[in-house]
């Protein structure tokens, strides 16, 4: 757009009016995108408020908010001790975690789709999830505690990406293609590794534990989990938000990026590391939750187009809201929990298919 204005004085009036019409459209799009993001933010706040009032343990909706306010301004206590303990140790952290994981997975998906110029990219395209799964499975085999399992999953997940980068830096050919291929191969190698750990696992306790871990769940999230996950997630998301204009440039290809003074390789490495950091943290805390990272960015793209300056915050907000809703279903629908990884696909996929058929442009 900057180039347009520089070249403006020379041409005749006719193209100028076409240009101003173009600018008009762009400005309109810009405004509608802003409105869309604002709408998503309001939706998220409303959903959080509603979620705070819902739960298997009966807590009066009014009390839920009183308890929150009570933390700042002391109020008269109208609620039971157990209600307060449950609210702050079980319900509240779980809602926070659903928001965080949803936002992270969607942001990582959007980032990967841009950097690898591939609409099928999802947060696990470079093997982050499979790496985490292998780490967790090995930790379960070794009989580790829950925290060690999460830590191992995180370390394996990050190492997977380092491995993929090492391989692709030694390979010849199209950088993006080589990186994605290396990711797919390492990913399938690790997924065989997971199958192998299942094979050697003790069928009475270890095998079910691995299977369960792979399904993903937010059930056992507590406040300290949120605290541990918050730092890497904030770091990764902040990086992606700061980089969102440069991701736009990446989508045009490396040569174009170079003409605009952007070092495509460096940016790609930074964006990939940030996206992997948040994916690895999400997977380590909650297990594998598919679908969100692949489809939420596409839903946002349908609404506001491909501009990453808008797309990145929109994806984060929509991902957060989506996972919160799905987790509400998971914890409220029946007395026992429904694994969230199954629900995301059950609820999301038909909706997405409907949108594709209605709206031909993707």
């Amino acid at each position, binding site marked *: 757009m900057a180039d347009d204005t520089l070249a403006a004085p020379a041409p005749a009036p006719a193209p100028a009016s076409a240009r101003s019409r173009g600018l008009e459209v762009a400005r309109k799009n810009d405004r509608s995108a802003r409105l869309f993001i604002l709408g998503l933010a309001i939706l998220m706040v409303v959903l959080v408020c509603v979620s705070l009032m819902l739960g298997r*343990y009966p807590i009066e909706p009014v009390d839920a908010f009183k308890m929150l306010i009570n933390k700042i301004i002391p109020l008269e206590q109208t609620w039971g001790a157990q209600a307060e303990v*449950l609210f702050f140790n079980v319900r509240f952290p779980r809602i926070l975690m659903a928001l965080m994981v949803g936002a992270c997975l969607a942001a990582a998906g959007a980032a990967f789709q841009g950097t690898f110029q591939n609409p099928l990219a999802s947060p696990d395209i470079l093997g982050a999830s499979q790496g985490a799964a292998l780490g967790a499975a090995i930790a379960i085999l070794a009989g580790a*505690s829950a925290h060690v399992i999460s830590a191992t999953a995180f370390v394996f997940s990050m190492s997977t990406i380092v491995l993929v980068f090492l391989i692709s830096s030694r390979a010849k050919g199209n950088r993006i293609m080589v990186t994605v291929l290396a990711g797919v191969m390492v990913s399938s190698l690790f997924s065989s590794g997971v199958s192998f750990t299942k094979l050697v696992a003790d*069928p009475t*306790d270890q*095998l*079910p*534990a691995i299977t369960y871990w792979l399904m993903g769940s937010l059930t056992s999230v507590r406040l300290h989990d949120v605290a541990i996950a918050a730092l890497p997630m904030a770091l990764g998301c902040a990086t992606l938000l700061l980089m969102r204009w440069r991701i736009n440039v990446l989508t045009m290809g490396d040569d174009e990026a170079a003409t605009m003074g952007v070092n495509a390789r460096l940016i790609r490495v930074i964006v990939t590391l940030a996206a992997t950091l948040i994916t690895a943290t999400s997977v380590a805390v909650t297990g594998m939750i598919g679908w969100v990272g692949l489809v939420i960015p596409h839903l946002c793209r349908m609404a506001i187009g491909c501009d990453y300056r808008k797309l990145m915050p929109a994806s984060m907000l929509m991902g957060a809201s989506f996972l919160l809703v799905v987790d509400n279903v998971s914890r409220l629908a029946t007395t*026992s*929990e429904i694994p969230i990884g199954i629900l995301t696909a059950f609820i999301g996929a038909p909706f997405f298919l409907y949108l594709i058929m209605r709206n031909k442009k993707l």
Partner: protein
Amino acid sequence: MERSFKSRLLALFCIVALCALACFAVAGCENGQQPPAADQNQSQPAERPEPAAVDPNATRIFTDSLGRQVEVPVNITKVAPSGHMATQVLLTFAPEKLVGISAELDPAVVKYIGGDCANLPVFGAAFGAKGDLNKEAVAASGAQILIDTGERKEGIGEDLDALQEQLGIPCVFIETYLDGYGTGYRLLGDLLGMPERGEELARYCENAYQETQTVMATIPESERANIAFLLGDSGLNGIAKGSYQGQVVDMCANNVVVVDNPSGKGTGNEISLEQISVWNPEVIVFQSGSIYGKVGGDPVWANIDAVKSGRVYEVPSEPYCWLNNPPSVNQIMGVQWLPRLLYPDKFSTSIEDVTRSYYKTFYGYDLSDAELAELLAHAK
């Protein structure tokens, strides 16, 4: 150009050669397998290769729990288990006749029962989650019969017929369930020519079950303890009421874990802490490896009645968990332990005596005072 064409030709040749080799290999295998299979079909009643070497003539017709008529050797000395449950049941019954086991034995199992069996070849399991039975290993072990135990699942008869055809040795099913171990052990005694051993274990199971049932008949539902049996590394998986894994718990107490879709799996149903707080059980039993030692220091758990009143226990798990996991004859120990824990006044024998006699009868193991104390450390 010329060169690359040549190398392409060479590559093509290699591929063709590989394909041909693969075809020969498959054909070779089929040829190798066919004659015995055909032989098997023609001379079904006469003789099978392996047992024939041990006892050529003496066979008889045995009717298994499914009503299948199977021709088996009269004198059986080599038995292969179909899977983990069968291994476990046979370890209590006739470990000396086992020629293989389904999986590496846990150190605790080796300690109590399987000392001599620890070095046997591992066959894998024919059915269940993995279905990795190594049929050639079974054949190579010289087993005369394959025994499957457990609950009667849909299609088990056809599965065993198919397995029997593949293995070339008889495969039988002995049904075992909580109030039917007597029948199962007697049938096993008859099959393996050990009627006294069968009778001994059958009597024990029937008496233990009967005693608990008699006691429970005197306790109305309203006076039974409200209990939750929880497991998993956050204690948020529950064995639901009405599930295959929860039979002992359901028999002895009010299982508060009532869900729409009770899972028959060893992991039970995942339950949120909010839901457990709503149920607010009076007694909680944790499986080993769960959070038994941690609940006291956790503010959310600390508000649940069971934790407040200190009625939190950990079910003993050596060599097998007493309540489930697997839900097999180890449950006979649970049937005696859980009611003694919940209603101690209703029984004349102590849990110590019962534990000693069970370990002696089923595992041939004399528990020392220290071992007994360790087993019951969190279970009293």
